[in-house]
């Protein structure tokens, strides 16, 4: 996190301290304006910045995998086999590595509608006070829109005969990109113990 948000918060706290220690200063003349800025304007601006920072944090893989139930999904991004889609996408930087979860799950919890946001709260509740289900599943089938958002129109996608043949069904979600005959290997968390994992990019040391 940058120095600017921290410095702003510390300055705002220092300004508010004046109001706590000497409230009478804020009741007359220019003090009233100072009070309005230090109690209302500046803190609201800082909270707006804080909200934005929190939302940016929540897009990171580290954030998603900070819950125990999601750790294995984070680990699945290191599967050393190009047939496993999430791993291949992350390892080849087809999606931003730091925000890989959000790149493919764009309407999940915080980023979805009100219902999705409430589901996100429910997930936190279940993670700490309930029982996490053995098998974690999406509420709705994976939407091809997330794949087509990047792949639609690209040569690799368009030149594939199966894609040409099934184009209408793919676009209408009638045929899922992740269906058994197409790209069935995704997170594969149950097979992690059996699969080879990638240790990350190696740096040339000369």
């Amino acid at each position, binding site marked *: 996190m940058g120095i600017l948000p921290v410095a702003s918060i510390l300055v705002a*706290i220092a300004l508010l*301290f004046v*109001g706590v220690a000497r*409230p009478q200063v804020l009741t*007359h003349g220019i003090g*009233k304006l100072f009070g309005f800025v230090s*109690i209302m304007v500046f*803190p609201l601006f800082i909270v707006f910045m*804080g909200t934005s920072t929190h939302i940016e944090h929540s897009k990171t893989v580290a954030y998603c995998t900070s819950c125990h139930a999601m750790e294995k999904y984070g680990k699945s991004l290191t599967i050393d086999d190009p047939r496993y889609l999430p791993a291949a996408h992350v390892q080849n930087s087809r999606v931003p590595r730091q925000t890989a979860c959000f790149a493919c799950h764009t309407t999940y919890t915080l980023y979805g509608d009100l219902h999705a946001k409430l589901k996100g709260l429910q997930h*936190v509740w279940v993670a700490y006070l309930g029982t996490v289900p053995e098998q974690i599943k999406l509420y709705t089938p994976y939407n091809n829109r997330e794949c087509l958002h990047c792949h639609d129109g690209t040569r690799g996608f368009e030149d594939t005969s199966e894609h040409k043949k099934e184009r209408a069904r793919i676009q209408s979600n009638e045929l899922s990109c992740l269906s058994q005959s197409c790209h069935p290997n995704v997170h594969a968390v149950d097979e992690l113990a059996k699969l080879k994992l990638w240790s990350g990019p190696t740096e040339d040391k000369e």
Partner: protein
Amino acid sequence: MSRSSLLLRLACALVMVALVVELVTLFWSHPLSFIAFATVGGAALGIGLLLYLYWLVWGRPDEAAAPPRAKE
């Protein structure tokens, strides 16, 4: 201490609490941190601002102890 002064002091203290919560949660990238920020921080900020607005509209500044005037 007058009621008006107390109100203002409380408003400042609550907004301060909200900012402290924000400062702490910004260093912790976790869903609970966002929830703490939104609930504890949000509530403290909301109540603090409402108290301040109440003071601005209905508070009587005369009630608050006026700053000491310099002797002429």
